[in-house]
């Protein structure tokens, strides 16, 4: 269980990071989504991994799973979903306006950047 969750987080993060370092917006946005999946699983695991235990106090039960990370993950999912939608819209706008979807600075702006 621990190995499975840990390697899932690791592989998602590695793939996400690789894609984020690409030059075009589509792979970068895909990479961002993978990174947010990775962080969601990571947050979920931060309350320790417990199988088949209730998150709410019940009579006659001694093992509980921590309910707080589940609430945190829910918030994180909603926020990252909204943010991905925003970045897709802005990237589409930039793509349709300039006819390319590179994420780096345009050449003339780069010259001004040198410093």
């Amino acid at each position, binding site marked *: 269980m621990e190995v499975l969750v840990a390697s899932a987080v690791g592989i998602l993060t590695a793939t996400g990071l690789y894609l984020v370092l690409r030059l075009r917006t589509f792979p970068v946005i895909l990479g961002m989504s993978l990174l947010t999946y990775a*962080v969601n699983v990571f947050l979920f695991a*931060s309350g320790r991994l417990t199988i088949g235990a209730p998150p709410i106090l019940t009579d006659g039960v001694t093992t509980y799973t921590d309910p707080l990370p589940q609430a945190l993950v829910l918030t994180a999912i909603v926020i990252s979903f*909204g943010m*991905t939608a925003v*970045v897709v819209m802005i990237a589409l706008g930039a793509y349709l*306006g300039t006819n390319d979807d590179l994420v780096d600075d345009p050449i003339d702006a780069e010259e001004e950047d040198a410093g």
Partner: protein
Amino acid sequence: MSHWIIAPIVLPAMLAPFIVLAARYHIGIQRIFSLVGVLALIAISAGLSWTASDGTIILYQLGDWAAPFGIVLVGDMLSTMMIVLTSVLALFVLLYVIGSGWDDRGRHFHALFQFQLMGIMGAFLTGDLFNLFVFFEVLLIASYGLMIHAGGNVRLRAGVQYVLFNLLGSTLFLFALGSIYAETGTLNMADLALRAQMISGDATVGIRVASVLLLLVFAIKAAMVPLHFWLPSSYAEAPGPVAALFAIMTKVGAYAIIRVYTLIFPPDLDVTAGLHDVWLMPAALISLALGMIGVLAAKSLDRLVAFAVIGSMGMVMVAIALMTPEGIAAALYYIVHSTLAGAALFLIVDLVKSSRSSLTLSAMPPIAGAALTAGLFFAAAIAMAGLPPLSGFIGKLLILDASFETAFGVWIWVVVLVASLISVVGFARAGSVVFWKANSVEPTEETEPQAPPHFLSYTAAGGLVTLMAAFTVFGGYAQGYMTATSAQLFAPEPYIAIVVETEGKLSGATEEGNH
């Protein structure tokens, strides 16, 4: 329990949807509501600051849940000072926006502006790390909208970079929060402060990783080298008044570093020993140097100001990295100064832009209203470069004084003084090319004389410069207040006691619930 402390968050949160739903086609009504809202914010923040100024810590438990279980808002001297600064800055930015008509060049400016204020206020007032993340997201999502306000391809493209960089920062923030929760089992700042002290010296790997991750996140917000790459193009491409409002956003990062690294991981804590002097200080010195070299190297006026912002954040971080009461007091003084100076410069750049075809540093025919704009630029540049008589000089003096007897004294003195010299040269060159050489260029036939900017625009930029002058004249009082604030930060016991011990629902459950 007074409810006033949540008003700075609720008021803009209610105003923004009202503006979108009820006044979306009436720019006049939007302006009135936005302005009244900001004036009310100033009054409320000033009241809160007055309450907190004697050392009182204002606590607000949302839903009456006791501290580690519920979310709390906490107002101490530092947070209330920052919300006063935010609301005053917002007033001047709003005046400029109305005067220059920026809000009419795209939709929903005022609604996004209010949401942005809500996020910033929340980030300053919250006493919970996860809540801080949520408010960061609120202020970021509003800033994405503001940054691409009025559209344009260059701006959209810079917007993509800005959004992606900040999304990466948010992901990193969540990783940091996850590690902290896994190590300590809480995300309430005061509760964290207690638990971080309990961690024994031989099991510090997890909490060390978490504290470094958290520092990285705040360093992205504060645009510290090497995490500053998002700032120059996004601030330069954003609409002028929006960039001026963003001057407070880098300070949110600085505020978070001050809060977390005095309260949760104080400098004398073994677990995170070495973080400030080994890592933070060199990065801060390099930011300062690189920002000011950027001022000298920039080929256009907007990028020059963006690099000046990086440099001044470097100066703030140098003072923070000292982690002494004098250092933090100097940092707080410099934070207020650099917010006002950065915002004034961005507004002045926009004044120049309004009647100039581009902002490149080359001689062009004189702009409309050149004399007044040039005078304002002169004053703001003096303040930003830290020359007497304006507040930048006092701020720098305080930082140099605080660092005199520390191990980094020599380095700080050398870098600060050389960087100041370089920035003076950079600003002087820019000012003389843009305003002075313009008089020797013959106006061509096709350029029609343009109307000078609206008087409200000048009121806004001039108001910020006047505030800086006032901040210099009353520098003694200001410095006294900052010293008291810093003393409160270095004696966090009352803060922790009030947050953890105030009664509410479920209070007392920690003892039986610990396992």
